[in-house]
């Protein structure tokens, strides 16, 4: 069991190196390690992340957006171990700046050849990267309903010009 764990862990670790450098920059330093390599089934999983020339001692010293991107790199590394048929991501792009949102969406687009993705978002760039959009609305107070949405019809205030459902 311990050997099986280590085999999966080494794969996840290799994935992390690849994904982190896709979301950050090629050549950035990062690693996934075990707090106690002698006792892998009981050990904690530690994350080391040093973007572009920086020297943070722990991931706590990274910025809000850098931390979120690092956590997403870990999630995607696990996903690559065993791609689930579908993934649901609820507003995980909120802390990211425009450039990082685009990197995030590019990696999802790549994975979407194998799995379906459902992205809950407020971010216009993320919306532009989807294949179809559903709008959730409360036309009646306190009662939700769903309408398909044409991205071009999204108004500035986040409400939708009504589209006749297909």
């Amino acid at each position, binding site marked *: 069991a311990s050997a*099986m*764990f280590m085999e*999966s*862990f080494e794969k*996840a670790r290799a994935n992390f190196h690849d994904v982190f450098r896709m979301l950050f920059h090629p050549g950035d330093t990062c690693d996934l390690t075990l707090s106690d390599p002698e006792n892998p089934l009981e050990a*904690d*999983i530690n994350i080391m992340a040093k973007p572009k020339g920086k020297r943070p001692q722990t991931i*706590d010293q990274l910025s809000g957006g850098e*931390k*979120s991107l690092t*956590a*997403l790199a*870990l*999630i995607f590394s*696990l*996903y690559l*171990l*065993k791609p*689930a*048929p*579908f*993934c*649901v*991501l*609820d*507003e*995980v792009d909120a*802390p990211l700046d425009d450039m990082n949102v685009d990197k995030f969406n590019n990696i999802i*687009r790549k994975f*979407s050849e194998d*799995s*379906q*993705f*459902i*992205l*809950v*978002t*407020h971010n216009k760039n*993320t*919306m532009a990267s*989807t*294949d*179809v*959009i*559903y*709008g*959730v*609305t*409360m036309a*009646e107070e*306190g*009662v*939700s*309903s*769903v309408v*398909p949405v044409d991205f071009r019809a*999204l108004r500035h205030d*986040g*409400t*939708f010009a009504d589209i006749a459902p297909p």
Partner: protein
Amino acid sequence: MRLKKLELKGFKSFADKSVIHFQDNITGVVGPNGCGKSNVVDAIRWVLGEQRTRSLRLDKMDSVIFNGTKKRRSAGTAEVSLTFENTKGLLPTEFSTVTVTRMLYRTGESEYRLNGVSCRLRDITGLLMDTGISSDSYAIIELGMIGDILANKDNIRKKLFDQAA
């Protein structure tokens, strides 16, 4: 294995029957604050068998039932159905389309169905066992979990790893 659609009725803010088609590769879900987007995510977790009320943002399970507004009475039942296409025969069943349904009555009674036939929760989790789909999957992620992963709250990194490994 591909998703086809999600149907909600009486689930949280979805008082009336609503349908979302998930046929595409990447589906966006958008709308103003408080309109019900995260409730859709909760519905997916719930129909897959989520029992932990905290993961569904509730204090007790019957809080998933539409609790009424100034102009509408509360609902008596919450019902969610998730339909898959059994592409690649990943699911151990002869059906090409599989619909998982969960219902909760305000009386506290609970019902699960597979393709309309009453069954037990374990029949559903058994069916989905090797597909990577579960209510606590590493593949259902919301913003709060990002913070938990960074702080490694309740050893979440190990738990997510074990599901994916």
